[in-house]
């Protein structure tokens, strides 16, 4: 068996809301799956294998791969569950890519989902950290992110206002996305006036809790172009995990993002990411990440992230639009969130992003972020890769 080229040939997202009591978990999953199958014009019988994921401890369901077969269409099919915290959605995409690239399966259905409303998110996230050394002071995702922002601010001197500018951008973009949960513009003043959650993060700097699901279908080179005339080719993926204890993190920058992006640019022969990449769907759980992490991605120089954001370069119509979908701070069903970034990048490549379409996208980057500051990256292309 030799390595196969892999493309995304269909995507589906649910209707997202803070609480979806109208559906149970299986039904929520099924909503995304049916839409992805419809988008690719495939039947469930065409699917060879399924990769599924959500956040551990969130819905109190352990064997989610088995429990959800009715909704996923997984009855008597090979199914693998992958769950890596915040990165779950991007990890299932990378896992699905490996299954197809290996030549073992031809068409793989990838499903990320979450009903955040059905658990205590902060409590569940806290249990992902060491019970003896980390949990006394840890306060869910926001505490770690706040520590990152403080370290960055102390080093490079950004402000609340810079963070707010990123929120304003993403919430404006979200108005173009029918799948976004929060579709209301906010101003810099609104963000700064919203309650302080953990210094320097205000309520309007962070992602909401969302119920929702996303499904993506990947196919091998042998059949991708028969399924759709505009497949989204996956050029390269990269995944980097940092050490276990939060005290080991190199605060103020995202080392895993810097390493993963170097690897992915090398694989794809990218020299100037800012010029060569046309759009980024960044898993950005809070606004300051939109400043810090674009530096780690090599899009802006160290300390110049804010300036690049203020220039409008990352807005729709700018040099390198980021999060045309509105991103994570407009919609965050955690186990699906990374896969939504991947699906949104695919829509951009396929020319199916409707009112949020960036013109003439040839190369797109999607990311996942999670846990102890780790990163997944996926590079998408209109052109079939020539390896």
């Amino acid at each position, binding site marked *: 068996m030799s390595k196969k080229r892999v493309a995304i040939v269909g995507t589906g997202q649910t209707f997202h809301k803070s609480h979806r009591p109208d559906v149970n978990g299986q039904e929520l999953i099924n909503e995304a799956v049916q839409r992805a199958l419809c988008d690719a014009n495939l039947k469930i019988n065409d699917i060879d294998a399924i990769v599924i994921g959500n956040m551990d401890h969130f819905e109190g369901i352990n064997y989610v791969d088995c429990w959800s077969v009715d909704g996923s269409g997984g009855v008597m099919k090979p199914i693998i569950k992958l769950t890596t915290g915040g990165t779950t959605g991007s990890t299932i995409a990378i896992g699905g890519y490996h299954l197809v690239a290996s030549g073992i399966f031809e068409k793989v259905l990838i499903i990320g989902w979450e009903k955040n409303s059905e658990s*205590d998110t*902060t*409590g*569940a996230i*806290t*249990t992902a950290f060491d*019970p*003896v*050394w*980390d*949990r*006394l*002071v*840890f*306060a*869910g995702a*926001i*505490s770690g992110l*706040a*520590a*990152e922002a*403080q*370290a960055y601010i*102390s080093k490079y001197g950004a402000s609340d206002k810079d963070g707010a500018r990123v929120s304003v951008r993403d919430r404006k973009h979200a108005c173009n996305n029918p799948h976004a949960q929060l579709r209301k513009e906010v101003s810099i003043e609104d963000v700064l006036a919203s*309650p*302080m*959650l*953990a*210094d320097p*993060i205000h309520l309007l700097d962070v992602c909401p809790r969302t119920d929702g699901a996303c499904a993506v279908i990947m196919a091998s080179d042998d059949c991708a172009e028969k399924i759709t005339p505009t497949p989204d080719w996956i050029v390269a993926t990269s995944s980097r995990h940092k*050490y*276990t*204890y*939060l*005290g*080991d*993190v190199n*605060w*103020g920058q995202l080392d895993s993002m810097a390493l993963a992006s170097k690897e992915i640019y090398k694989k794809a022969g990218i020299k100037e990411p800012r010029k060569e990449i046309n759009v980024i769907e960044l898993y950005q759980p809070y606004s300051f990440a939109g400043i810090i992490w674009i530096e780690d991605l090599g899009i802006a120089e160290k300390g110049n992230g804010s300036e690049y954001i203020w220039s409008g370069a990352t807005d729709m119509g700018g040099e390198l639009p980021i999060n045309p979908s509105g991103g994570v701070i407009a919609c965050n069903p955690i186990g699906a969130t990374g896969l939504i970034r991947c699906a949104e990048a695919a829509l951009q490549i396929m020319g199916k992003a409707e009112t949020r379409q960036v013109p003439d996208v040839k190369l797109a980057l999607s990311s996942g972020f999670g846990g102890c500051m780790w990163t997944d990256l996926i590079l998408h292309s209109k052109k079939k890769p020539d390896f």
Partner: protein
Amino acid sequence: MKENIIIESGALFQPFNYSIGLYGSKFFKELTDNRKFFGTKCQKCNKVYIPPRKVCGPCFSEMTEFVEVGPKGVIGTYTILRYAFIDPETGEQKPVPYGYGFIKLDGADTLFQHYINIEDESKVKIGARVEPVFSEEKKGTIKDILYFKIID
């Protein structure tokens, strides 16, 4: 190091016990009996780790040398938590607002997480010098340290 220490959750019963290993046991024994902090040092890269652990991840080599660090240090980074939430460890409301810091104990290369006293918020800054305040009761857990206070 023959004594194993088991950490228990709070007053509300939870069906979990965590073994912390011999290195963790050494840390808590020194903390409880002598109010001292011990980390481990990698022979290969010289990095001093707190909390102590057996393997230096980047070198993937076993560490055998314990080194005393702290008890004073500086704030590496921090935040002040202001939103109310339930501590999943104890089922109790967290004492918000509270200062949460990553302390660089003198002589250590990694950071030690704990509460920071925020009586005077204007003093809570990266680089501020801190020292631990210990509890009178000796429990052999991380709660033997009440918080770190700013001494600048």
